[in-house]
């Protein structure tokens, strides 16, 4: 996914000298061709995320279309106020590419667990947030990354394979069923695994994936379609505080929907032991088995 995105930006940059790509000294070998063929459009800023956002601000103010690359918490939490004051207040055309959402870089330790980024960035005005999981979702987003405004794009190295049918928001056709899982980003794969097992148990589960987190506009048809489900679960690889689930909860409250709703996400605590993505998802109880147990427990009650 990540490589395709950079290739896409490179292809566009070849035709538009105003496209500039900055990295905070991450992405080994990822930018070799870009740097070699377009040396005036690629800059490794060094390990200085605040300065990277500041330089991006200045470039964008001079009508450059800037992409900024780094991983997880670095182009987000580390330089948060620079994003708020410089990119967002001035509403500039800068796309922050944050590689490695949630526990993607799990074994590297707590510093690399990007488990609050979505909540934190979501609270800043003017910035759009994209969190694609699949090849198709990235394609949808490619159309939007040339909008003239700040954007935050969460990507991972690999795509999630579409093993089963699911819907991508905004959805066009009508859906109904007993259980609905609304999810965002690569945790989609756990929802799909859970859905396969639940369907085997005759618990029909629908999934909607949300590659666009902000702005998120729910039309009346979608809101009505939610009413048809007995249970709705939101799923995210992010801290529950301020995350995707709470965004959904707002929607339910605002529209006075009488829906049995539960948020599945990371609890408000750090995981201090080592583990890869799959291991840490289990520890955080956001893996497929945990999802199934949440759902079964809810149905029993």
């Amino acid at each position, binding site marked *: 996914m990540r490589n395709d995105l950079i290739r896409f930006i490179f292809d566009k940059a070849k035709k538009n*000298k105003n496209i500039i790509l900055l990295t905070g000294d991450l992405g080994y070998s990822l930018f070799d061709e870009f740097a070699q063929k377009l040396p*005036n459009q690629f*800059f490794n*800023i*060094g390990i*200085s995320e*605040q*300065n990277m*956002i*500041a*330089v*991006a*601000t*200045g*470039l*964008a*103010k*001079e*009508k*450059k279309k800037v992409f900024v690359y780094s991983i997880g918490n670095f182009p987000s939490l580390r330089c948060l*106020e*620079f994003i708020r*004051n*410089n990119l967002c*207040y*001035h509403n500039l055309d800068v796309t922050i590419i944050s590689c490695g959402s949630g526990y993607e870089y799990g074994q590297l330790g707590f510093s690399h667990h990007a488990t609050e980024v979505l909540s934190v960035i979501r609270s800043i005005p003017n910035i759009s947030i994209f969190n694609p999981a699949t090849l198709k979702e990235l394609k949808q987003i490619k159309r939007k990354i040339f909008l003239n405004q700040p954007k935050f794009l969460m990507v991972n190295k690999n795509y999630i394979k579409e093993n089963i049918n699911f819907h991508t928001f905004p959805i066009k056709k009508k859906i109904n069923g007993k259980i609905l899982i609304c999810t965002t980003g690569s945790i989609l794969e756990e929802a799909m695994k859970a859905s396969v097992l639940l369907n085997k148990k005759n618990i029909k589960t629908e999934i909607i994936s949300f590659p666009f987190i902000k702005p998120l506009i729910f039309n009346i048809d979608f809101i009505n379609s939610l009413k048809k489900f007995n249970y709705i679960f939101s799923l995210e690889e992010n801290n529950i505080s301020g995350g995707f689930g709470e965004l959904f909860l707002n929607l339910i409250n605002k529209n006075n929907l009488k829906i049995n709703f539960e948020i599945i996400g990371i609890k408000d605590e750090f995981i201090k032991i080592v583990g890869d993505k799959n291991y840490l998802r289990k520890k955080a109880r956001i893996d497929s088995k945990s999802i199934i147990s949440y759902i079964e427990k809810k149905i029993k009650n």
Partner: protein
Amino acid sequence: MYKLFKNDSINNFAKNLRILTLKMIYHGRASHIASIFSCIEIISVLYFNHMNFSKKNYQRDTRDKFILSKGHAGAAVYAALALLKIIPIKKLDTYYKNGSVFSGHVSHYKVPGIEYSTGSLGSGIGIACGVALASKLDKKKSKIFTLVGDGELNEGSCWEALLFANHHKLNNLTIIIDRNYYQSILTTEKTLKLNPLKQKIKSFGLDVFEVDGNDTKQLKDCLKKKTTTTKVIIANTIKGKGVSFMQNNIKWHYKNPDREEYNLALKELIN
């Protein structure tokens, strides 16, 4: 209300800036007057004299660009733009007041002539680097200026940006440091030692000059010097410069003058 000197010399421009900002600070019940007074000559030389920036061309892409990194001196820039007739002088009356666009820290929103909004210290040099890099890539003739407080240099982001400025040899960028030796609570040297500042910055590879930052002639001459990389001017200034009881007195970083203090200050500035 706005009885000012004739704007026909740099020194009168500076005098008017002090009078205007004193009025703004007093009527707005605002703070930071001493930080504003220390950099009045710097702002005056840039806007009155040195920069290719005027009512005629301030919207043109070829203009020189100024970024106030020490955003708390915003009143000085608003007042300079009023003296250049880019914004109506009457509008300065709304400074710091409810419903106004003239916030304490400089903001560009609906204020023509303000390039960037700042307020949180440490962002201006990096932004100026981005603007300077873009100008170089586009082979524009614009020159970029940023004014940084000396206390502001506590922020690591300033030093990140200095590394960058040198690495990319941004010789279209001038960084002016308002070296008034005071920050929020104590002197810079008692808070987080900056000296030897010149050597520090020089060691980054930049072209560093030191001038009396309240002397318009020294500033003018220094700004004219050509350099191969980013120019850094350490402008030695006096915090609160222009009003005897405000000079080098840290309380005027925050304090708003009462009626008596205001009248005394105004008297000193007019005479």
